[in-house]
């Protein structure tokens, strides 16, 4: 029979043991994964479904930073205790980060098993980390202005579009930087023919320039711009809203705007970081986000609904049209390019 005294002693022992063990259990249960992520519709889906499901499955919390600028914040944080564990940006910033040793060179199937199922572009030598989605940079245009659907990047130079064509402030926008490289390919010897690109860019004046793709969307919707450089998701997101805008992928090819995930080498929760990337590559997660924001998924096994499948880059043949910029090459010349294009487009 258990006496009152021994019961109390046993209870006190359990309580002490529980108290001593609590910090480690608590620690194990409340690992925090620090990530960067986008806002807008993407951010809404992440917060509503994707991240809560990840937290539940992996018994952790995710601290998702949506406040730009991500790269300067990562650069300013201690290398041995980085501000982020998973770094989500477009490809150009990943190349800047890897040059400073802030992110890993490559993510392989060893760390992230779902890498085995991605299209080759997602892990090509043009990508640092892994591209989990891409959108295609082409031409958005108004369908109510009597314009034929553009078939070439040269269509943007049509004199009829003087003052109603749209581009980007190249130093701050990667779509603008992609457009510049594409001008080199279309009017010169290739993506790296900057002289031809500068000449072609100057010929596009007068052109309306914006900082963000969101602004370009609104300029197209308002009719202030009749044709402009934009990614497909920036147009397709208005599908079903009776807006007179459409997207065209020019015959010379579309530029890939990759959504890249990478891990910081000194992350304290590296395994969790890899697990997060693996989770983001799962077909069900990819489908939810792809159909939510009209991004083309990297995982070949994703089966999208027909209307998304028809427009997005979801087959080997379609993804072959994607042109991946060499951001390492571009970033090495960025200062000179910025100075030149700013001078060219001044006023």
């Amino acid at each position, binding site marked *: 029979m258990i006496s009152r005294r021994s019961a109390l002693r046993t209870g006190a022992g359990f309580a002490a043991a529980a108290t001593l063990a609590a910090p480690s259990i608590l620690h194990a249960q409340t690992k925090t994964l620090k990530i960067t992520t*986008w*806002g*807008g*519709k*993407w*951010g809404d889906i992440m917060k509503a479904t994707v991240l809560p499901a990840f937290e539940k499955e992996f018994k952790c919390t995710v*601290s*998702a*930073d*949506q*406040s*730009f*600028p991500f790269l*300067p*914040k990562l650069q*300013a*944080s*201690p290398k041995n*205790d980085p*501000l982020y564990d998973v770094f989500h940006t477009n490809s150009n910033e990943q190349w800047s980060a890897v040059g400073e040793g802030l992110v890993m060179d490559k993510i392989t199937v060893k760390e992230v098993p779902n890498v085995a199922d991605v299209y080759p572009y997602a892990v090509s030598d043009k990508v640092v980390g892994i591209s989990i989605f891409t959108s295609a940079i082409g031409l958005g245009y108004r369908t109510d202005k009597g314009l034929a659907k553009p078939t070439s990047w040269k269509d943007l130079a049509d004199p009829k579009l003087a003052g109603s064509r749209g581009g980007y402030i190249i130093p701050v926008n990667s779509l603008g930087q992609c457009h510049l490289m594409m001008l080199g390919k279309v009017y010169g010897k290739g993506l790296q023919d900057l002289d031809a690109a500068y000449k072609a860019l100057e010929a596009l004046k007068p052109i309306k320039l914006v900082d*963000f*793709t*969101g*602004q370009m*969307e*609104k*300029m197209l*919707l*308002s009719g202030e711009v009749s044709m402009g450089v934009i990614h497909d998701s920036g147009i397709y997101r208005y599908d079903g809203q009776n807006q007179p805008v459409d997207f065209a992928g020019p015959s010379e090819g579309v530029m890939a705007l990759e959504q890249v995930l990478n891990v910081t080498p000194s992350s304290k929760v590296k395994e969790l970081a890899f697990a997060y990337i693996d989770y983001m590559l799962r077909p069900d997660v990819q489908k939810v986000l792809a159909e939510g924001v009209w991004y083309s998924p990297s995982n070949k096994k994703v089966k999208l609904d027909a209307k998304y499948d028809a427009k997005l880059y979801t087959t080997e043949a379609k993804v072959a049209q994607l042109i991946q910029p060499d951001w390492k090459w571009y970033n090495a010349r960025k200062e000179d390019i910025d100075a030149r294009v700013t001078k060219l487009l001044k006023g």
Partner: protein
Amino acid sequence: MSAALNKRPFDGGRAAYLALNGALLVFLLAPIAIVVVFALNPVPYISFPPIGVTLRWFEKFFAGSDFMNALWLSLWTASCVLVLSILIGGACALALDRGNLPGRAVATSFFMSPLMLPAILTGLALFQSYLLIGIGRPVWGLILAHTLIAVPYVLRTTLAVLHNFDRRIEEAAAVLGANPTRVFSEVTLPLIRPGVFAGGVFAFIVSFDQFPVSLFLVQPKAETLPVVLFNYMKFDLDGAIAAASMVSILLALSVVLALERLIGLKAYVKL
């Protein structure tokens, strides 16, 4: 006869003066007018003339938890900054004006220096400092950073009041038997109050609208309104931005009016 005599000749200088003032007013108020049109126009982009009137963007703003959390955090931060900057800025001004401190001019420049540095650099430097000492990005760190930027405003306005302060009033109170504490609380403080609170209004507004410093110091799920608006604008540039701007303007105006009613800022304006 009197009508002819009273008729003032055309004054070109005065007309130019009025025209310049009118142009300045238009220049200052036109952006607010554009914000109002954008906030009330049903279409999700800036268009003129507007095609109608709607409150949907205000509904979107007030229904958005991100916007509301950010609004409350901004208000809370600005309120704390108001109090802290009044206490620190007011005390500094008194010490600089009355303390016979060595190197007074240097000390004044030192306290004013946060205004001379680009705020983005102040934000980045504080961000790095916070991470280096291992405190992360707490809300109180953000409040301290805003206070650093806001103190010079209180300091400047209080020093201006103290510069015009007639010390004989304090001396009279002392001669009549008031101890130093009573002189300070019943003579000095009421007389410098308009300057201190005018600086406090600036401090509140500077904190509420602060963007470059906050950019580096906000943490996930605890972002101030200007930061949330900037991030929102990158992906969804619609009338909710304009509605948020309207609310910000009205809130700042309310604070100024409330302080005017409470302490009478006009007194400071008359100085």
